[in-house]
């Protein structure tokens, strides 16, 4: 009788024994924290990019940690900072980050809060917990100022993506191509009347004037403006040859649709996240034709032939059947951030949380190929370095919409076509 019971229970014992053996045998995961605002499309896609990188690394057994002599898998923990939702105070975002660090004890943080204000406030938390952070969204130069104010305190922070200065410069250089190719030199600016958009417009204005352009008009437009005919007419009568429009308000699509329907004789550079996605053509169609856009950094929105990792990234994204990105900006940086950490852990031989001060040195020495080109950090700013040659640094690429495709047109060494004027401008 007893024997019968034993044999009946044997498979159950065996199952639990196997389970325990597996639990003891599996290495402790390296925990990555991802606190950001999942309301924002670019954050949703950013998380998918991080998931993809983690799956790839775990499929190879994880990251080899030399000091421990084992490969450890990666595990992702997330927190919604909600800082991309209207009306969420910075304090709430900070609490979400604090809770994530205190409860989940991640070995490092990737991506980080969406809004610049929240990221600025998070800098002190990073310093307090001495947690290595590869931040990939907020673009404000203020973060560099904070870092440079006390590099010893804030050394755990690295920006593994572009910043607004790099993006502004790339935008200005893209527009300046019209001066080089078509001898254009008159710029008209339409900026949404909000602080960030006015700041971007001011930066573009200064840069363009530096290149020899005359700013023939600068029109801030109120949020909610739903007819741009008057301001576009001003652009026409000012003799402008390039129109720079910056904003993120829901009625902004009216502006570029009117630019086309009114046949305003200018080129249009649109600093508007939505139209940087290849998906935008499905929504706006030929209204986007000839519009210049800049999804940053290079390769995040569409593959660039000269950047093999970007081709690979988009191929994998499709294979995973991930949804097309609504807002592709900095999504590739989230993916690269995981590989930057992997590379640094393998070189250091230990995980970031073991000795964050020492780990900083390994991150500073980063030199690997990423989606946007060569990834290196500037030791004096902890900012990823961007340039125009992907063999030397990471790059930013501008595109022109042509018959449903985003065609790289800047920088010229990576361009797949030449800048073209819209038919009604010629």
């Amino acid at each position: 009788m007893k024997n019968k019971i034993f044999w009946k229970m044997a498979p159950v014992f065996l199952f639990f024994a196997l389970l325990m053996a597996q639990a003891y045998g599996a290495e402790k995961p390296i925990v990555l924290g991802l606190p950001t605002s999942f309301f924002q499309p670019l954050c949703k896609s950013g998380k998918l990019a991080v998931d993809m990188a983690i799956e790839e690394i775990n499929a190879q057994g994880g990251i080899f940690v030399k000091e421990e002599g084992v490969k450890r898998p990666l595990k992702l923990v997330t927190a919604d900072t909600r800082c991309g939702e209207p009306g969420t105070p910075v304090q709430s975002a900070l609490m979400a980050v604090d809770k994530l660090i205190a409860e989940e004890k991640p070995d490092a943080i990737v991506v980080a809060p969406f809004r610049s204000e929240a990221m600025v406030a998070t800098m002190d938390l990073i310093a307090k917990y001495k947690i290595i952070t590869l931040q990939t969204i907020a673009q404000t130069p203020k973060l560099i100022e904070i870092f440079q104010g006390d590099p010893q305190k804030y050394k755990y922070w690295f920006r593994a993506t572009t910043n607004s200065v790099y993006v502004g410069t790339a935008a200005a250089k893209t527009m300046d191509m019209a001066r080089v190719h078509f001898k254009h030199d008159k710029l008209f600016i339409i900026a949404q009347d909000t602080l960030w958009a006015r700041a971007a417009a001011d930066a573009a204005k200064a840069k363009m004037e530096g290149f020899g352009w005359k700013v023939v008009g600068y029109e801030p437009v109120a949020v909610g403006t739903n007819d741009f005919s008057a301001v576009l007419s001003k652009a026409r009568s000012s003799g402008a040859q390039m129109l720079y429009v910056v904003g993120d308000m829901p009625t902004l699509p009216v502006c570029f649709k009117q630019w086309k329907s009114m046949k305003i004789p200018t080129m249009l550079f649109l600093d508007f996240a939505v139209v940087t996605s290849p998906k935008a053509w499905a929504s706006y169609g030929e209204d986007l034709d000839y519009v210049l856009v800049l999804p940053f950094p290079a390769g995040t929105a569409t593959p660039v032939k000269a950047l093999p990792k970007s081709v690979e990234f988009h191929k994998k994204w499709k294979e995973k059947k991930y949804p097309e990105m609504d807002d592709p900006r900095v999504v590739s940086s989230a993916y690269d951030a995981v590989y930057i950490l992997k590379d640094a852990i393998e070189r250091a031989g230990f995980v970031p949380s073991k000795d964050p001060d020492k780990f900083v040195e390994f991150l500073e020495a980063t030199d690997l190929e990423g989606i946007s080109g060569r990834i290196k950090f500037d030791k004096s700013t902890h900012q990823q370095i961007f340039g125009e040659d992907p063999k030397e640094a990471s790059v930013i690429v501008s595109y022109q919409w042509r018959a449903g495709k985003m065609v790289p047109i800047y920088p010229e060494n990576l361009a797949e076509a030449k800048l073209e004027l819209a038919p009604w401008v010629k």
Partner: protein
Amino acid sequence: MEIIIYGITNSISLALMAIGFSLTFGISGLPNFAHGAFYLLGGILTWIFLNQLGIPYLVAALLSILAIGAFGFFLYWGLMLRLRGLAINEVIATLAVAIVIIEVLRWMGFSGFSYVLPPFIRGSVNIGGVWVDNQRIVMVGIGAALIVVLYLFTRRTKTGLSFRAIAQNERTAIAVGIDPDWTAALSLAMGSGLAVVAGLAILPLGAIDTEMGYDILLYALAVGIIGGLESLPGALLGSFILGFSQILVATFLRAQWQTVVTLAAIVIILAIKPSGLLGKYKELEERV
């Protein structure tokens, strides 16, 4: 010429936004603060019918108008009937409905500019040296047709005449056998349906975004306050004053003052003639 053409198109778009609100308020005295939300919901429903269910555009548009119209009808019987005559409660209730609709749509992810209705006719035409997109021409056509249809409806049909009777004197209308609740429910249904018509005419000019729900209500209120909240001719006059003011300000001053014009007009009219230019709601008190 550009000022005239775009002044007209801008004015008609404002009139379309406001006409449904004015119709409901004029007949039943019901301030439908969910008007902007219905505009938005109608646009999104049409987008879903068109892109997710593959229903032809015109059928999708018609279905949305009917669906939102029915929603307005049942909203009256289900909620507003209990609040009749309590002006503040009516405002709070309809505003709550608006917030629920807009925030649920936001929660469902209907923001992010991917939701775009195609124009009825692509391309643009040159009118007296001014290029105008065909959709704006269609929009002006819809606006003009709507004004004519509403004029005929309120003067030539039994239901329309009962609408006017209730609007002029509810007690006398009841005495001759007109059911005020039925009329109010119908007016809310029509106003809601008209919000969708406005959305279908205007939304192809840009994109659909949840934030618009609040903006449309603001414009409808501004037009109503200027022209007279309960007056359809007032709504038309208000939209032309506001539409041309916006274009003139953007042309001769700066575009950033365009929305300030809207708010300034509300303040000025409320200070000078609270009933609005053609409104008679508090005309007697104003004279006194």
